[in-house]
């Protein structure tokens, strides 16, 4: 039994909504805490979101081109 860890969109300051622009890992890839996981863009800025924990990227919820708001589920790491 493994527990899954949610990857959520962090508070990016004065940002309403972002577009997911690049996943730097694929489903099934091993990830380590602090490793670059995906990129999201606002009209003005590109943010790199890091993996919050060690594990395997088991599920990508928001795909490239999808929109997301703060605290929305982006992926799961198990």
């Amino acid at each position: 039994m493994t527990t899954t860890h949610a990857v959520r969109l962090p508070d990016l300051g004065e940002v309403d909504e972002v577009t997911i622009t690049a996943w730097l890992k694929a489903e099934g890839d091993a990830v380590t805490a602090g490793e670059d996981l995906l990129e999201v863009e606002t009209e003005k800025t590109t943010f790199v979101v890091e993996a919050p924990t060690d594990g395997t990227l088991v599920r990508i919820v928001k795909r490239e081109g999808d929109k997301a708001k703060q605290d929305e589920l982006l992926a799961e790491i198990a």
Partner: protein
Amino acid sequence: MGVRRRRSGTVLAGDKVRSRPDWLRVHAPTPNQVRDMRMVRDVLARYRLTTVCQGALCPNAVECWGARTATFMLLGDTCTRACRFCAVPTGNPHGKVDRDEPRRVAEAVQALGLRYVVLTSVDRDDLPDGGASVFAATVRAIKRSDAAIRVEALVPDFQGNDAAIRTIATAGADVLGHNLETVRRITTAVRDPRAGYDQSLAVLARFHELSPTTITKSSLMLGLGETHAEIMAGLRDLKDVGVSIVTLGQYLQPTRTAYPVARYVPPDEFATLQQEALAIGFRYVVAGPYVRSSYHAAEAFAAAVRE
């Protein structure tokens, strides 16, 4: 799904979704930075204040707020001008002024423990003095609360109104700033018709005449379509009116309808421009893709004073 492996310094071929080069990426805030950022946001809300960090959707908000630095935007959140590079809403505030704002800014500065404060404002062409009296009162309120706090006043052009410029120049700010924004040729395309290249230079020249020992500062956005020769001409014009500190940063289109980015200037070009600007004789030059006029302002001031 195809995974795009990142290669440093390049936008990947066939990439339809990503729109910016790698050097413009920033890391999402850590939980500690988020906590500090929320603390700043709470204080600003409590004192009913606006920052340009919010108004301009600044990409450095995470870093600056995390370091407990903020640039206050005085005189409301509505600007009477419609510059095409800016995200601040345009409108007519009909002469409405919050006379209590200077006191609240000084209290927020204390609450945040700031040692270096940048004050800026919207343009207030609806006011006879362009808001200069409120601006000056805010500088004085902060200095009254603690004379050791450094204050940088980044002001509008006041349509060249000399009384307004004098009000600012004599308020006691440590740095007097006014942004030239872009090179001469592109000024009319991106700035409001009431702004002007020569008018901005005149404001900076007047600050230097009225308060020759006070450091003056200005800023250019790059990537609007200017040539290297035009940038150098702009820098020489700023030097000629006595400016000590310049900042050079990448223009980023804040909204879909704003002026488009013509080019992303690579970091090595910023590094070269920094050296070229220093060779012209500026005391301090901050240059880089994410540099904004108040970015690392405390360091720039300290270095310029040492010079």
